[in-house]
């Protein structure tokens, strides 16, 4: 499709559903997803003159939306401070999971065996629980987790996007996963 055949007013009907589902799968909030899709359309309209049709119009809109989603995560993450003290203040820390004097798992937090883990992926319930657990993460941890494991940005890209040091980045990833694991287990994962 060439720029001359692009009809922006048709974008919502033509691509709106797909873009909205994509946004909703990332932000889990229907109002925010809607807003991101609208922002993507308006940015595309502004940049229509630069659209060279090297990619399809659909692909181009997805690229713009993905950028909007990354910007959204960045705003979320930057709404909280990023120093180590602030990271500690944001939810549980290693001290909640490990015995400080020897670094071993505490008996309450030691990972249980996830006996039904292989079958769990097929269950809608797992996806619902995982999304709920992700929403409960502190903003910065949620943003880092989503950028790394859903958007699949590299550690370097995430540090750049969120203004994090490498050391803080690894702490945040580690804590996000510790919390997600605990949340999944609280909701029954690993129990027969």
């Amino acid at each position, binding site marked *: 499709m060439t720029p001359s055949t692009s009809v922006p007013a048709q974008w*919502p009907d033509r691509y709106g559903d797909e873009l909205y589902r994509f946004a909703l799968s990332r932000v889990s909030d229907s109002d925010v997803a809607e807003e991101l899709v609208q922002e993507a359309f308006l940015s595309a309209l502004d940049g229509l003159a630069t659209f060279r049709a090297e990619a399809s119009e659909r692909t181009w809109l997805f690229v713009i939306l993905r950028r909007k989603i990354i910007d959204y995560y960045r705003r979320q993450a930057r709404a909280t401070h990023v120093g180590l003290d602030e990271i500690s203040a944001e939810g549980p820390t290693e001290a909640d999971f490990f015995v400080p004097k020897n670094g071993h798992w505490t008996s309450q937090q030691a990972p249980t065996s996830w006996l039904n883990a292989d079958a769990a992926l097929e269950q809608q319930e797992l996806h619902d629980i995982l999304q709920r657990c992700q929403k409960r993460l502190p903003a910065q941890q949620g943003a880092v987790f989503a950028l790394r494991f859903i958007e699949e940005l590299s550690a370097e890209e995430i540090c750049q996007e969120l203004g994090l040091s490498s050391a803080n980045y690894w702490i945040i990833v580690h804590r996000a996963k510790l919390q997600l694991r605990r949340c999944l287990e609280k909701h029954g994962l690993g129990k027969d």
Partner: protein
Amino acid sequence: MLLEQQADRPASESMPASLWLHLRYCPYCSRYAKQTMLIAEWARASAARQTSTGPALSDAAKARMRERLAAG
């Protein structure tokens, strides 16, 4: 944290001996290593699933967006 860093390395890069040894003698850590990989895999699968089966954009939202786009 070493586990997270290891998971981020290319598969071709071997695990540091110290980490390998630690996992061998720490069953909880070994279990956690598998679980941390599963969580990442599930998060990707969950987002992909919602992308293909999630709800559609409402007609009202589409109408609002059409208006904004038409207004330029």
